[in-house]
Each structure stands twice: as structure tokens, then as C-alpha cells.
């Protein structure tokens, strides 16, 4: 018990702890309860008492519920932290792991990355994080659309695009981030959706740029990590990926995948197209549209057929309950009870029966004592439940004479 928060008069707490009270015969009451255990209790009656008691809050009661709730469900950290975390999980030995660790540390400490980090992030094709406080909406969406102009100016512009003005760079970053969000959403859909055959279609549909001219400049970190090493190498020179390099990378991707089992993972296979299709138009402002599409098609053609993201266990059924509900058992037994009662016609004593259901819902055994036991067993063995996950379920019921 927690210590008293406010002193009461002498002896009051002792009295509270052992309050004098006349008590009934508890053993008799326990027997009465046991006799009532077979009483059918409706589901509504159970719902009524299993929830939290409806107690009106006191007039001056502090509203701690919302505070606790918000504390227990922290706001998601910036999308960069999530990206960096995924990056670390998927490719520990990747070259970008160190950078991702730095990114994670920076976002974790909510500090602004220095100019060098911004430059390295940009060179790696990832948007630079910012420690500028963001409005809630932006924070929730995970899309950071604001980058300090100073940081952008300090960072060497890695894009080979002819425009080198800060405004143009900012626009590119924003577009890139939007594409990154799309790619992450597609990757998420691939991982979550159980039907893997639909995943590639959803992925490509989500990732296919509608307007290559306005296509993203950067791929997301998660997608970036799934990119074959050769593609990263192709990008390393100038920080941008050309369609030619992508085509080569796509051709090289098979041996790379053969070496790296992780690249064959469902998420890897699904996410891999995203940097290609998303970054194919990276130079799209200067390249013809058809060329960009061709590069994307080549990359897609080189992809091995993706494996199912999550294969459900054989025979599993999400809708199947672990064990039948008490209501279902009551209903099943109620359907055959009258036949069982008929076995006791002319008798005065009740018979207790134990019915064991197998997982397919059928009765596997019935035990009932007395001269009418066989008759009751035959009647109760016709009860039927919906299938359930457990090996068996036993129910006890008392058959009273009609």
C-alpha cells in the first residue's frame, strides 16, 4: 500500500486497514457461487462489467489521463532518424552506415548537423536533416520541407544540374523529399501487405513518376540502402545517377545480390526499383524523357521477381480464435441440452458432464456419470462449435432433469 499522503487522527488509519465489519458465512457463499457458475451470462452483461468503471472525475481533478497518454505515445521523431535507423538495420557494412550513425546521433540529440555533414549527406543522395523546430504537422508527416538557407549555401552543391542557385536547390530538395515519402510509403506497403504478388505492382505504381520533369532529385535513405553497390558507385562520382549508370548497375545487380542475401529480401527487392525509377530522372531536366523511361524499364527488367514480403504460416487463420468464447460454448451446449435433459426424464438428480471439443469444433469426448450417462453422452456429442486454434477445449455443464 502506498503511504498515506495526509495524516488522519490517531488510530484512523489502523481502523481503515482492519475495518470492523460483520461478515457472512463465506464458505456457504462460496458454495452458492460454485452452484451458480453454470449460469449463462450474456455477452452484454460481461461487456458491462469488464470495462473501466465509469467514475465521474472530481471537479478539481487534474487531467492526468491525456498527459499520461501523450507521454506513453511519444511523438515520432523526425523521418531522418527513422531513415537512419533503417539504414543501420539493413546495411551494417555499407559505406553509408557511418554517415547514417552520425545522422541518427544528430537527430537524436536534436542538434543541427554541421556543414560537413550536410555536404556528405548531399553527396550520398540523402536530404540533410535540420534541427530547426518544426510545426507539428510537418513533424508528424515526417517530411521536412525547410532547410536553413545557410546550411544549403554552406553545402557544396553536388547536383550537376545547370542551376546552382539556392532557390533551385531548395526546390529540388523539396521535390526529392516528396518522392522519398512516396518511396517509403511504397516500401511500407510492400512489407505490410501479405499478398506479395500484388506488391511489385503497387510499388511500381507508387514509385512511377508522373512527370519526369518534376521527378525527385533524391531517393530516400531506406531505398538508397537497398540499391546495389554498383549503383552507389556510379553515383559516387558526382552525387547524381545517370540513366546509363543505372542500366549498368541493374545488370550488375544480380551478382551483387548473389553475394548479399539481404538484397534478395522482400523489402530489398521491392525497394530497389525506387532509387532507380525515382533517380532516373535525376538528370531528367537535361535528359530526354524517353531515355529516362528506358533506363527505368531496364532497371525493372533486371530485377528478379520479388519474393513474398511476409508468408503466412501454413494453416493459420487470422479469424480463428484461440479458444471458443463462453457465449459460443453456451449456445452450442444449449442446442443439445434439451435432448440431454430428456435422458433424465423421471429422475431427480442432476448429472454433471464434461465435454471436450477438438480444434475443428466437434465433440471428441463426453463424460457423464449415472445410469443415463450413455444417453447424455450421445446427446451432448452432437454439440458443435466453430473451429478454434487450441488443440482442445473442455466445457463442463450440469444437466438437470426436465
Amino acid at each position, binding site marked *: 500500500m502506498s503511504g*498515506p499522503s495526509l495524516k488522519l*487522527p490517531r*488510530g484512523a488509519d489502523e481502523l481503515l486497514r482492519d*475495518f470492523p465489519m460483520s461478515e457472512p458465512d463465506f*464458505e456457504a457463499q462460496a458454495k452458492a457461487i460454485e452452484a*451458480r457458475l453454470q449460469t449463462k*451470462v450474456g455477452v452484454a452483461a460481461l461487456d458491462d462489467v469488464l470495462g473501466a468503471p465509469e467514475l465521474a472525475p472530481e471537479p478539481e*481533478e487534474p487531467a492526468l489521463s491525456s498527459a499520461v497518454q501523450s507521454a506513453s505515445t511519444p511523438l515520432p521523431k523526425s523521418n531522418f532518424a527513422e531513415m537512419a535507423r533503417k539504414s543501420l538495420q539493413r546495411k551494417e557494412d555499407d559505406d553509408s552506415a557511418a554517415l547514417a550513425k552520425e545522422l541518427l546521433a544528430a537527430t537524436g540529440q536534436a542538434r543541427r548537423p554541421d556543414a560537413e555533414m550536410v555536404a556528405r549527406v548531399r553527396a550520398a543522395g540523402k536530404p540533410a536533416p535540420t534541427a530547426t523546430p518544426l510545426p507539428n504537422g510537418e513533424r508528424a508527416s515526417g517530411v521536412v520541407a525547410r532547410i536553413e538557407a545557410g546550411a544549403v549555401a554552406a553545402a557544396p552543391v553536388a547536383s550537376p544540374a545547370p542551376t546552382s542557385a539556392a532557390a533551385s536547390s531548395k526546390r529540388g530538395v523539396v521535390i526529392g523529399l516528396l518522392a522519398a515519402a512516396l518511396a517509403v510509403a511504397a516500401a511500407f506497403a510492400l512489407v505490410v501487405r501479405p499478398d506479395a504478388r500484388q506488391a511489385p505492382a503497387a510499388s511500381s505504381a507508387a514509385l512511377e513518376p508522373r512527370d519526369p520533369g518534376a521527378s525527385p532529385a533524391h531517393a530516400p535513405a531506406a531505398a538508397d540502402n537497398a540499391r546495389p553497390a554498383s549503383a552507389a558507385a556510379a553515383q559516387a562520382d558526382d552525387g547524381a545517377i545517370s540513366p546509363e549508370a543505372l542500366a549498368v548497375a541493374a545488370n550488375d545487380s544480380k551478382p551483387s545480390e548473389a553475394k548479399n542475401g539481404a538484397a534478395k529480401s522482400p523489402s530489398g527487392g521491392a525497394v530497389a526499383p525506387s532509387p532507380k525509377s525515382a533517380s532516373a530522372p535525376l538528370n531528367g531536366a537535361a535528359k530526354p524523357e524517353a531515355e529516362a523511361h528506358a533506363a527505368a524499364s531496364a532497371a525493372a527488367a533486371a530485377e528478379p521477381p520479388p519474393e513474398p514480403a511476409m508468408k503466412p504460416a501454413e494453416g493459420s487463420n487470422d479469424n480463428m480464435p484461440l479458444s471458443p468464447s463462453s457465449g459460443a460454448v453456451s449456445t452450442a451446449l444449449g442446442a443439445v441440452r434439451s435432448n440431454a435433459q430428456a435422458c433424465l426424464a423421471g429422475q431427480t438428480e442432476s448429472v454433471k458432464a464434461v465435454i471436450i471439443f477438438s480444434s475443428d469444433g466437434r465433440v471428441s469426448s463426453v463424460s457423464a456419470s449415472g445410469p443415463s450417462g450413455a444417453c447424455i453422452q450421445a446427446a451432448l456429442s452432437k454439440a458443435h462449435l466453430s473451429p478454434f486454434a487450441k488443440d482442445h477445449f473442455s466445457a463442463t455443464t450440469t444437466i438437470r432433469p426436465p
Partner: protein
Amino acid sequence: MVTPARQHLPERTDRELIAAAREGDAQAFGLLVRRHQRRVYRLAVHLLKSGAEAEDVTQDTFVRAYGALDRFDGRSEPFTWIYRICVNLSLNMLRSRKTRRASSPDDPRIEALLIDNRPAAGSPARNSADKQLSRALIEGIDELSDTLRTTLVLVCIDGLSHAEAGEVLGCPEGTVAWRVHEARKKLRVMLSERGFDDDDLEGKE
């Protein structure tokens, strides 16, 4: 008297009894009933101020709990789950009453004051003072709102921790702590009005 053989029998936990009861072992549930029925009854008495109603609620609590065994998810302790059912049933009964009564003719707490035959620990004067304090406490507790009374009974009378009471009531520990403090504050004022003033306080605040 406990025999040596019985002494060495490992006592099954509430969770084990619940698991056995789920498998149809009614005896296991009977053990659970016997283990908790006294506390459930005393909780119901403080909430309902009536022995007969408290007995009904105690029986209903265990019958409903048995019917809902499959819905016990194991996240909380079985006894807090049973307490929650008891509190809900008691509140339902309170709300179904047409009038709010201050006391009941069959209030077991009042009966105990009248027929208290516990061995006297002190002088007759002391026993008389204790009875007066008990009566004042009963009146003070009954004057509290349902919310404060329920929380006070769970924590200060039944000995639940703030976390356990929070599980029963479905509210944060901080809320439980605030309600306990508020209830004790009001109780102290009520006791003071009945002549149990600060001279009788235990220690300092």
C-alpha cells in the same frame, strides 16, 4: 491446524487457477473464489453500505468473472480484474437505486460497532473512543463521492498500491494519488467536524 503434508503443497497462483478454470476445472475457480471473496465482499460493503447487496455483488462478481474467463487477457493481475468487476457491479447497483441513502439497516460496519466482541486491547474508555472514531469514519467515507470513496477504499482500506488501483479504475497512478489525497483531506475535515481534531493527528504532515 495445517498438517506437514499440506504445508509442503505448493500454493497455486491466481494465474494458474485462472488457467485451470479456463480448461473447465471448476474446483480451481472455487479456490480463487475462496481466496478473494472476503476482500471482494468488504470492498462491496464500503461501496454499497449494505450487507445483503454486498453479498449479491460478491456472488455476481465471481459468476461474471467465470463467464468471462476467456476474456481475461493476462495483462493485469487476476485480482485487479476481479476487483474491477466488483466495482462495476457495485456502481451499477448504486445507480439503480432510486434514492441515495446515507446508511442501510443492514450495514455490516454498523453491526460490527454494535456487536463488536473483539478482545479489548485497551481500556473501556479507549474502546469507546475507537467505536466513536469508527462511526465517524463510516460517516465520513459515506459522504465522499463515489469516485473518491472507491479510490480510498481500494488504497487505504484494501491496501492496493496506486498502480493496482489504477488498473482497477482504469486511470493513471497520478490520478489515484490525487484522489487518495483529496479523499483523506475531506475525511480529515469531516472527522474534525465530529470532534476528532488536529490534537489527535498522528505525527506531523
